[in-house]
C-alpha cells in the first residue's frame, strides 16, 4: 500500500475509494510476495523443528492411510487394488490440500493479529502465506502421488499439462475461499467450527474414498453441483488417464470469477475494520 518510506492513510471517501484501496493492498501484497513466502516457509520449518522426518511425517502418515484405505475399501467395494489405490492416493492428497487451505484460512488474520495491529503490511500478504504454506505441503505429498503413479504404471498415461491446468483452477478457487473464511472468521468466532463441519461433510459427499461411477444416475446432482468434486476432478482425472468434462472447467471458471468478485467486495468493505475485529 505504501512505499518503504511513505505512508498515507485517509478516511472513507465513498465506495469507489474503498475498492481502490483494496486493490492497492492487493498490489502491495503482490510486490511483497517474497515476504509471504518467507512467512510460509517459516511456518513449514518451525512446525517440524525437532522431528527427524520433518514435514515428511505427515506425508508418511498420509501414505499409510492411502495404503490402508486402498486395500481395505478396495476389497469392500470390490474394486481392483490396481485401480483403487492410485485413485485414493491422488484424491486424498489433493482433497487434503483443498480442505486444509480452507480450514487454516480461518486462522489467517486471527493468527496475524499481532503483526496487523502494529505494522502497515498489506493484509493479503497473510492470505498468500496460508495458501503458499499449503502448496509447500502439497509438494511434499506429491511424493505419494509420484510413487503410486509410478508403481501402478499410470505415470506413462498421465496427462501432466492438463493436471497442471486443473491445479491452477484448484488454487484459484481455494485461494478465494481461504480469504473469505479468513475475513468472516475474524469477525465471527464460531465460523471455524462451521467451516470444519462443511469440509468434513464434503469429505464424505465427494468421491475421495469412493468411485464416482458407483453413484446411481438419479443421485448424479451430488456430483454435478458439488464444487469439491469439480475441484478434485480437474486434477485427478488427467493424472489417472481420464478426461475432464468441459462443464467441470466451466463450473470452476464461473466459481472462481464469482467467488473472487464477492470476496474482493467483502474485503474492500471490511478492510478497515478487520484489524479491530481481532
Amino acid at each position, binding site marked *: *500500500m505504501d512505499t518503504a*518510506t511513505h505512508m498515507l492513510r485517509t*478516511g472513507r471517501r465513498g465506495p469507489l475509494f474503498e475498492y481502490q484501496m483494496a486493490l492497492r493492498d492487493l498490489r502491495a501484497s503482490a510486490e511483497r510476495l517474497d515476504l509471504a513466502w518467507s512467512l510460509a516457509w517459516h511456518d513449514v520449518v*518451525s512446525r517440524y523443528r525437532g522431528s527427524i522426518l520433518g514435514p515428511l511425517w505427515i506425508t508418511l502418515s498420509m501414505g499409510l492411510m492411502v495404503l490402508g484405505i486402498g486395500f481395505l475399501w478396495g476389497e469392500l467395494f470390490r474394486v481392483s487394488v490396481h485401480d483403487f489405490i492410485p485413485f485414493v492416493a491422488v484424491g486424498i492428497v489433493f482433497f487434503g490440500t483443498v480442505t486444509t487451505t480452507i480450514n487454516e484460512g480461518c486462522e489467517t488474520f486471527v493468527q496475524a493479529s499481532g*503483526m496487523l495491529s502494529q505494522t502497515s503490511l498489506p493484509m493479503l500478504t497473510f492470505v498468500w502465506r496460508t495458501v503458499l504454506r499449503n502448496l509447500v505441503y502439497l509438494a511434499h505429498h506429491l511424493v505419494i502421488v509420484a510413487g503410486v503413479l509410478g508403481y501402478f504404471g499410470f505415470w506413462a498415461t498421465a496427462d501432466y499439462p492438463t493436471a497442471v491446468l486443473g491445479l491452477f483452477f484448484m488454487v484459484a478457487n481455494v485461494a478465494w475461499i481461504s480469504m473469505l473464511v479468513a475475513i468472516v472468521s475474524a469477525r465471527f468466532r*464460531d465460523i471455524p467450527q462451521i467451516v470444519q463441519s462443511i469440509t468434513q461433510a464434503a469429505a464424505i459427499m465427494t468421491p475421495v474414498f469412493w468411485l464416482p461411477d458407483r453413484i446411481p444416475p438419479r443421485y448424479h446432482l451430488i456430483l454435478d453441483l458439488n464444487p469439491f468434486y469439480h475441484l478434485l476432478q480437474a486434477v485427478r482425472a488427467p493424472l489417472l488417464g481420464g478426461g475432464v468434462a468441459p462443464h467441470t472447467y466451466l463450473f470452476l471458471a464461473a466459481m472462481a470469477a464469482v467467488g473472487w468478485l464477492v470476496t474482493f467486495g467483502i474485503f474492500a468493505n471490511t478492510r478497515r475494520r478487520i484489524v479491530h475485529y481481532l
Partner: protein
Amino acid sequence: MKAPPVSISCQDLTLRFPVYGVDAKSLKKHLAKITVGGKLGRHHGSTDVTALSHLNLELKAGDRLGLVGHNGSGKTTLLRALSGAYEPDEGSIEVQGRIAALLDLSLGIDPTATGYDNIRLRGRIAGLSSRQVDERMDEIAEFSGLGPFLAMPVKTYSAGMQARLAFAAATAVEADVLLMDEWIAVGDADFQKLAHRRLLKLVERAGILVLASHDVELLRLYCNKVMRMEGGVASEVTPIKNLDALMAA
C-alpha cells in the same frame, strides 16, 4: 535519489473503534436475532468508541514528542494509527520515512520457533531482505547474549530471555520514525544498561521519536516536545518545559 525529509502529518484525524462483545462475535447469535426479530440487547452488542477525535499533528525531523495522558486516553491508538495499522475514519495520516513501531515486543514472536528463526521473521516483517537479516544476525545474536540458546525453541526460554530476544530483534531495524509505547528497557540490570544505550542510539538515528509514557522523568530526558491526550482529544504540542503546566491543566 533523495528521499523527502522525514515528517509526520495528521489532519483532522478521527478514529472510531467498534467494540464487540462476546455476543457480537457469534454468527449463530446474529442469526438467532434476525429470525426471532428481537431487538433486545444493545445494537448487536457492539458499541462505537471514538478513540481519536479531530487530531492535528505536525512533526518534522528532530522532533521528539512525548505523549502523556491517562489509560485509555488514546495514546496507543495514535501510535498504532501512525504505524499504519489503524485506518482513520476521517481525516488523514501521512508519514514520510521508514517507520518502526516498538509497541508490543512479544508480538510476532513464535514460541515454537528457534531464536534464530524468530530474529529472521521479525527482520523480514520489518522490511529487511533475507540477506540483510543474515548480515545483521551476528550482531543481533551477540547483543541478545543468548549464545547457544538461540538455536533452541523460544518456548524453552525464561521470561527474561524471551524479552532479551524480542528486544534485540525489534531494535535491529533502521528507522526514521520511531514509535514507542513506554520505554522498553528490559531484562536484568546489566542488560537494561545495554538496552538503554541501544535504544538511545536508535533514537539518535531516527528523525522523529513519538514516545507514550507515564514516566515524567523519562519524557524530560528524551523528548523535546509534549502533547497531552484526554478522551481521544489532543492538546497543542508544546515544548517539554511546559510539561508540568500541561499535566496540571
